[in-house]
């Protein structure tokens, strides 16, 4: 979903000291949600909430390995706030929206046949 104002989303994500600490830890290397929770007196769901904010802002990505889901800094990092990167990201979000709509349409056509 393209953010209407990605710069504000990024700033909001960075405005929390716990989230900044999470980013600092990930700057040293990938970590699981459990490893990220260790330094804080916080539950795993609590850390997960912060991770969701960071993912939405394009600052963190999470791996898809079935055994564990390591968190990693999105190499875009703060260059995301550059206007042209925002444009390219928004361009792709739109394209993927249209791709999904096309695949749905195709599936409906095939069901009818």
């Amino acid at each position, binding site marked *: 979903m393209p953010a209407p104002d990605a*710069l504000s989303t990024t700033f909001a994500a*960075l405005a929390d000291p716990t989230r*900044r*600490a*999470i*980013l*600092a*830890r990930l*700057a*040293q290397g990938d970590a699981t949600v459990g490893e990220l929770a*260790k*330094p804080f007196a916080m539950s795993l769901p609590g850390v997960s909430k912060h991770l969701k904010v960071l993912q939405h802002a*394009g600052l963190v*990505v999470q791996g*898809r390995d079935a055994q564990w889901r390591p968190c990693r800094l*999105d*190499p*875009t*990092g*703060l*260059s*995301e*706030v*550059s*206007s*042209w*990167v925002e*444009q*390219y*990201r928004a361009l*792709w*979000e*739109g*394209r*993927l929206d*249209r*791709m*999904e*709509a*096309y*695949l749905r349409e*195709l*599936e409906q056509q095939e069901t009818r046949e």
Partner: protein
Amino acid sequence: MPDRSTQFATFIVERDISFPPAAVFRAFADIEAKRRWFGDPGGSDTEHTLDFRVGGLEHSSGGSPQAGGWYTYDATYQDILPDERIVYTYAMTIDGNRISASVATIELAPVDAGTHLRLTEQGVFLDGLDTNEAREHGTNELIDALAASLEPAATGAAR
């Protein structure tokens, strides 16, 4: 003559798509399918051709006020693993000026919901021609300062 500059960036777009990898791959590989989603929804593209094989070329061009003028897109496919991975390099021009050159990697992985797609683009952006000049230099300085504040030593959170 524009001021000369280069900016480098990488960005990632990830999404879970509720269709199998083969269907998503086909949407990239087949020109009739790709035309349905890749181009400008405003319909300003005038052409899009695709030779989907390693070493094959892709070309698209069009124009609109939103695009900022007349653009061209030219890509060369570098690596294709069916239903898994597509790597291509591409360059863009706007109004005849070269504005960027990039490497794009699309990775498809099967997941319960369908396909996890990850697009990673690494590019060089030339001569500031691709900016809409809405961002102030001061904003970038502030971001640099925030980035510096994220150095691990500053927080002591890592043990």
